[in-house]
């Protein structure tokens, strides 16, 4: 540690550049994974806010809420408990006085069931009458206020915004919550259909009806349109980035160590144990990498706080921890590869 610190202190520029490089690389990885995670969240936030464990859909709907329909004759056989809720989904284009048209997901709910009952609003009240909707806070950012109205698709009926809620996103689109009869209207369905599916907080929930299939929420999320493709792409991107970063950082630390070898040869001649020199090299690599990481984390936090609301960025602590540990291990690896050279360094090589 003594040599490591003194050397960094004396060679400020050189070590500053290396810390800077670690900083930039880890900043890149942090921001990219933050963006990827933020986007992934926008697929699933809504479903997660419902606390859903199982989703019941028509078994021929290809695990898609959008494609599924439950008929009244099916649902008449069921009595839902406090942990279940009917959900009717329809993609809509919302038009209003403000801003551009917004592509949104309409979710029809039974106001007496748990999703509507438990919904946390940031302002306003629950849907308690006809032609009312509660909408995601993105509408607020677009300039909508309580009492403003929205029209859907080509329909002429206006719906009043009575409440705002946060983190209501499905398929990267903001959710508009209304009731199930509005959903039927939007879908042009008769009363003989009840909903698209049933959401349950109970991990063991099934209906017993053969035409209906109960999926666990993980399967449901993976089947969201585009979700797994998107995640695979980002995972690969971040994976490649990590591997290349590892190589780059390792190469730098390797070069750094090579440059020290003549010096180490002298110290070996003077009887300094190889162990001391190896420890010195590794602790120095750790110092450099953790210095770069701390700065990268600070810079990432700063970036996240100044990014406009429209850019989804999300941080998942386990993911960040894995990345951080990965980069630290990289540093150690980069320092360990040339250890063999340190152990082999020939003191005689420096003696004229």
């Amino acid at each position, binding site marked *: 540690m003594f040599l490591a610190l003194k050397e960094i202190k*004396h060679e400020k520029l050189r070590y500053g550049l290396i810390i800077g490089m670690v900083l930039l690389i880890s900043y890149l990885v942090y921001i990219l994974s933050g963006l990827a995670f933020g986007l992934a969240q926008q697929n699933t936030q809504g479903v997660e806010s419902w606390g859903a464990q199982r989703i019941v859909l028509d078994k021929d709907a290809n695990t898609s809420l959008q494609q599924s329909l439950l008929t009244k004759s099916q649902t008449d056989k069921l009595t839902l408990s406090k942990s279940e809720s009917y959900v009717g989904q329809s993609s809509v284009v919302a038009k209003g006085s403000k801003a551009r048209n917004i592509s949104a997901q309409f979710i029809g709910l039974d106001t007496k069931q748990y999703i509507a009952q438990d919904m946390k609003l940031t302002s306003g009240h629950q849907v308690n009458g006809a032609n009312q909707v509660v909408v995601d806070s993105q509408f607020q950012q677009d300039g909508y206020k309580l009492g403003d109205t929205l029209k859907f698709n080509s329909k002429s009926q206006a719906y009043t915004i009575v409440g705002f809620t946060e983190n209501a996103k499905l398929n990267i689109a903001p959710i508009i919550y209304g009731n199930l009869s509005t959903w039927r209207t939007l879908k042009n369905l008769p009363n003989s259909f009840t909903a698209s599916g049933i959401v349950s907080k109970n991990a063991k929930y099934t209906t017993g009806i053969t035409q209906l299939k109960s999926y666990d929420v993980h399967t449901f999320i993976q089947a969201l349109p585009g979700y797994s493709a998107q995640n695979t792409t980002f995972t690969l991107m971040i994976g490649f980035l990590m591997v290349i970063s590892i190589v780059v950082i390792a190469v730098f630390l390797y070069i750094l160590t090579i440059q020290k070898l003549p010096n180490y040869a002298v110290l070996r001649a003077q*009887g300094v144990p190889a162990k001391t020199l190896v420890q010195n090299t590794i602790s120095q690599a750790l110092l450099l990498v953790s210095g770069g990481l701390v700065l990268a984390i600070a810079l990432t936090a700063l970036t996240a706080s100044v990014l406009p609301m429209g850019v989804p960025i999300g941080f998942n602590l386990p993911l960040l921890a894995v990345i951080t540990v990965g980069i630290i291990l990289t540093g150690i690896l980069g320092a360990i590869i040339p250890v063999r050279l340190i152990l082999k360094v020939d003191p005689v090589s420096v*003696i004229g």
Partner: protein
Amino acid sequence: MSVIELTNVNKSFGVDTSKIDVLQNINFSAQKGEVSLIVGPSGSGKSTFLTIAGGLQTPSSGQVVVESETMSQLSPKARDALRLRKIGFILQAYNLVPYLTVAEQFQFVDRIKTQHNLSASDLNALLQDLDIANLVKKYPSELSGGQMQRVAIARALYPDPEIILADEPTAALDSERVAVVGQLFQDLARQRDKALVVVIHDMRLEKYADHIYEILDGRMKQAS
């Protein structure tokens, strides 16, 4: 009693036609309390001799005994430890750690060899003798060649080794400083019972030596 003893030592590099014999049948011993001077021209094998005597290189044949330990029988680790405890190397290319100040060069020794180094006052006296006490805050790159050489001498003496092996310790010094270093070596031998082995290409340390050997084309003979 000899603290270093080389018996029938040969050293050659390369094989077959490209083989060169750098040291041939060297017999040498150094005692405590004496300064041994080994004089020879460039390329005669002086540095090779010194590194073999200090256990940095192994001879092609023959035996090296340091402080009753047969070098070839020690593990590399044990050889390191012996070097750290008993031998002070003053190397031909001064070999200070470039990113440590003069004072820190000594602090670093304290970290790897925690006991039996010179006391602060002894170190200070040594630095005064060598006229480098005012340089302690400087980095090697800020020193002249002669100053670096004197710091390197102090660095080698600081762990208070029993045996001091010096490779051209006065090459960069003027005759006034040569006298100081020569006197310092003689005092270390006479007063502190150290064994000094000094290889050098000129006769400037002649009058401080107890024994003088000549080395020529890898063969050594006693001159006086």
